């Protein structure tokens, strides 16, 4: 239902009312922004010299942000690859017809889905060393991200595999294919195309979650911003705090919005190509894949 159904095409009176509403609404929004800017300005936060530090190579800020961004991307990339591979294996394991495979795999998936990511990271970082396995903060973060996201991705993959039409599987078996062949040659290629948007959405979540490294002291983007703030505070007093945090936040937002846009484009393409090929009825569109988890939270 488009939102246009919710209200009538405005007549002259309604148009006037809407104009008033638009003006009042606009003024309210601008007033809110104005108050924030005014308060910031009152504290001298809008002083251009304060913002210049973000782009000043002599102060080392762009370099520090750049290397921290690289580390963030490296953490995300490693965790994305490992969790996708493990998630795929777990999904196939959960669909196995052998009970001794299915039950342990289901337990692992449900366990890691039920506890907060931060608890997994803490367990790796604080609890494991007591048992002789010392992980660096980097390894604990990547390990936590992997364990948590492999469980979430496993459910996404499973939903995708189950959404492939039953006839495909039956036809493949009728052709004399083995179980492995049915899975790898028939089901997975169709499933992956269909769940690509959900998959990318989850990878955006993973990228966002790398910021948890801040709490255990991995020098990713956020921690770097914090340590820059501490450094500049000790040098010049509390003047660059706000600017540096805004800088880090803007980097996150830009990267994530870019990735989300990729997800949207992929979704549009898979949808239209499915329509063109007549392969998937609309009821099987990606948006109906139930992952049991709201994407992106």
């Amino acid at each position, binding site marked *: *239902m*488009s*939102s246009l*159904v*919710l*209200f*009538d095409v*405005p007549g002259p009176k309604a148009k006037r009312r*809407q104009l008033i*509403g*638009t003006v009042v*609404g*606009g003024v*309210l*929004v601008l007033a809110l922004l104005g108050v*924030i800017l005014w*308060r*910031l300005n*009152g*504290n001298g*936060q809008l002083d251009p010299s304060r913002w210049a530090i973000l782009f000043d190579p002599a102060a080392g800020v762009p370099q520090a942000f750049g290397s921290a961004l690289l580390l963030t991307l490296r953490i995300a990339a490693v965790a994305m690859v490992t969790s996708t591979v493990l998630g795929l294996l777990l999904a196939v394991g959960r669909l196995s017809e052998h009970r001794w495979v299915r039950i342990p795999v289901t337990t692992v998936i449900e366990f890691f889905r*039920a*506890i*907060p*990511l*931060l*608890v997994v990271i*803490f*367990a790796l970082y*604080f*609890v494991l*060393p*007591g*048992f002789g396995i010392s992980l660096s903060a980097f390894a604990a973060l990547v390990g936590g991200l992997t364990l948590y996201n492999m469980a979430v991705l496993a459910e996404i993959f499973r939903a995708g595999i189950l959404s492939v039409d039953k006839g495909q599987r039956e036809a493949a078996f009728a052709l004399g294919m083995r179980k492995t062949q049915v899975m790898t040659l028939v089901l997975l290629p169709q499933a992956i195309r269909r769940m690509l948007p959900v998959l990318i959405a989850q990878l*955006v979540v993973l990228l*966002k*979650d*790398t*910021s*948890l490294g*801040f*709490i255990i002291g991995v020098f990713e983007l*956020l921690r770097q911003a914090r340590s820059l703030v501490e450094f500049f505070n000790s040098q010049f007093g509390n003047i660059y*705090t*706000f600017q540096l*945090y805004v800088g*880090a*936040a803007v980097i*996150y*937002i830009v990267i*994530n*919005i870019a990735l*989300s846009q990729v997800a949207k484009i992929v979704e549009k393409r898979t949808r239209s190509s499915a329509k063109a090929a007549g392969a998937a009825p609309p009821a099987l569109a990606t948006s109906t894949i139930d992952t*049991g*988890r*709201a994407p*992106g*939270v």
Partner: protein
Amino acid sequence: MQFFLDNIDLFRDAFLNTLGLTLFAGVLALVLGTVLAGMRVSPIAPLRGLATVYVEIFRNTPLTVVFFFVIFGLPQIDTVVPFFTGAVIAVGTYTAAFVAEAIRSGINSVAPGQAEAARALGLTFSQTLTTVVLPQAFRTVVPPLGSVLIAMAKNTSIAAGFSISEVSSLLARLSNADPNDLLFILLGVVLAYMIITVPAAIALNRIEHRVAILR
């Protein structure tokens, strides 16, 4: 086990903090999210724009960064909030974006005929939205809204990084304890989250069945 019992007071306080955080942030997220969803379908363009920008920004910012802005950013505009209130604001405003998206998808799933009929009866936009569309939308979005809220309960753990003594933070705080004792603490932490999430999931399932519309 003895160590766990020795720290039971600490554990209880932490659990109450997590529970309180979940409840307050949940209410804030539901109220703010519903308002945002209403704004996104309203006839007034600036409100639509504001809600869209809000949702896009909060959905693409890590919760940790939102925490940063509330705890370290708000003082820059002369608004200092206590840590607990700050955590409620951070988790609530962040989750509101996801609640708004869930409710909007619910609004989109209500049959257009419903809104057309409401308009034909002469209902205004706010009447159409609050008395016809939203009541039906809420019923269809119980499952996604439920997973948003359960994810939020787990997300409250991030408050551990901002000097709030909630359940996860105990792992960091007691990390010098004997490894076996710490394992018990870990078990307790996992159980504490399950005490919140499992009944919530069951309750949501019940609600879903009770309010489901057969189409």
